[in-house]
């Protein structure tokens, strides 16, 4: 079997195990959908100022915000947690002792979380269109897809990187959430931008979550006149992704930590 076929085969097994694991399926998959419903129930009809400076309904903000959260949750949180568990359970070490090429194994894992991410994004987007009247304008569709692609790749890389600083599998949820939750709060995901003091936004701008959220906000903005590409934001996200790759390559370990 070719290594590519092996990677695709790995996706099938990852996928099967994922959906059978209630904790993984819930926190990675159901969580963003719950947030979508709650935020829209609470703030969906409120008039707010969106990233482009225009005034729109809360849903215009929250649909792309939950799309960004979906990317972070499935690619970053999902990958960092499942890799930590696989490493400390000895699954990575065991897999390394087989003829399966390392890249095929990790490609399988990355493809799996990418599929989860895409499924989430489709659900959120369709729900946004049907229930909350939020459409991705056709003109900015390429910008939305590129943002998803760059964001997905970067947050997968960061998932690998963070796995290397997780001391053991039991600590994985604490470490990962300690990183993700504050970022989601300050990065125009849970709370619209006009509520934050300027210095907090400056802090958020150092990290990739806000840039991904901004890129998606623009692509979903009904008033957007251009093609919706936020090149600077995408460049920051990509830079974080490359840093994540470099960090993971230096520090990644197949061996369980005790």
């Amino acid at each position: 079997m070719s290594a590519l076929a092996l990677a695709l085969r790995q996706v099938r097994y990852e996928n099967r195990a994922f959906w059978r694991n209630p904790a993984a399926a819930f926190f990675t998959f159901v969580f963003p959908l719950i947030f979508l419903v709650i935020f829209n129930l609470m703030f969906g009809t409120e008039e707010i100022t969106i990233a482009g400076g225009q005034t729109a309904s809360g849903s215009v903000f929250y649909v792309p915000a939950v799309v960004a959260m979906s990317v972070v949750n499935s690619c970053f949180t999902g990958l960092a947690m499942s890799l930590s568990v696989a490493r400390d359970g000895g699954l990575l070490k065991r897999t390394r002792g087989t003829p399966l090429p390392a890249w095929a194994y990790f490609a399988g894992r990355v493809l799996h979380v990418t599929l989860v991410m895409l499924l989430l994004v489709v659900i959120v987007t369709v729900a946004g269109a049907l229930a909350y009247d939020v459409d991705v304008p056709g003109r900015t569709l390429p910008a939305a897809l590129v943002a998803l692609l760059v964001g997905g790749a970067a947050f997968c890389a960061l998932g690998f990187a963070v796995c290397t600083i997780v001391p053991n599998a039991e600590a994985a949820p604490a470490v990962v959430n300690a990183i993700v939750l504050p970022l989601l709060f300050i990065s125009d995901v849970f709370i619209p931008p006009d509520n934050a003091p300027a210095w907090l936004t400056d802090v958020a701008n150092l990290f990739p979550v806000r840039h991904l959220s901004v890129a998606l906000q623009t692509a979903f903005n009904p008033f957007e006149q251009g093609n919706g590409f936020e090149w600077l934001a995408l460049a920051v996200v990509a830079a974080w992704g490359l840093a994540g790759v470099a960090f993971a390559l230096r520090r990644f370990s197949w061996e369980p930590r005790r």
Partner: protein
Amino acid sequence: MTEPAIHVRGLRKRYGDVEAVAGIDLDVARGEVFALLGPNGAGKTTTVEVLEGYRERSAGEVRVLGHDPARGERAYRERIGIVLQSTGVEPYLTVEETVAMFGGYYPRPRPVAEVLEVVGLVEQRRTRVRRLSGGQQRRLDVAVGLAGDPELLFLDEPTTGFDPGARRQAWELVRRLRALGKTVLLTTHYMDEAQQLADHVAIIARGRLVVVGTPEALIAANPETAITFVLPAGVMPPFELGAAHDGGGAWRIASVEPARALHALTAWALAQGLPLDALDVCRPSLEDVYLQLTGAGCDEGASAASLGVEDAHG
């Protein structure tokens, strides 16, 4: 003579200042069960991990099935199976799916049903891994190691933590593997396990090979029979019996002439009117050899050379 499955000369592995493996020679023939014995920290696992390709050696020559494991070649990994100490499987897949997944990594996997038959998990084939008992999970570990139909299987402490019944089953499994023509390199710290299963045994202590041989040859090289007994408090056996405290409140005589020693002991006891409680006469076991060679405070000069059993191997 065909090339041995494992050929090691002068293997050394240092971690900083610590030499975990300090010069080991090994030859494992194809189709045999070879046991590596030693206390924790003796260098067993390090040695095996070098052979498996997980660690790079600091020095020495290593050939396994004609490959150098340090090169991490796919062709090498296609021919070996590794059963680590920790259970590394996905808990939410079924037994059958797990074996099929790992089997798929190899060019000529053994059919899943056959693998499950060998390890005795046919009835659990549709059970999710997380619902298996500890012993069943360990058998699944072996099944995963067998999935690619390897020529050589590494079994790292396969029965640690097993109850006696589960251990017997695991032993039966290892015997079945040998019947299939597999070479098995087993590490264990159970002497009886090595005595039951292994064609050859190597004892490692402090990073060095202390002795290699068949279990029978190792025992034969240590021909002292142990005679143990208990005396009332304050009573000392006469000096010429050569008895020593065994550390547990009993006395012990080690003798190459058990009939003579026993006769002298019982004659003395009868004359003194002593009952000789808990009198026991034991022929040596591998455990005695092992304790003599690895035990703390034992004579470090007791080496393979002085036992003269090296020739028994190979």
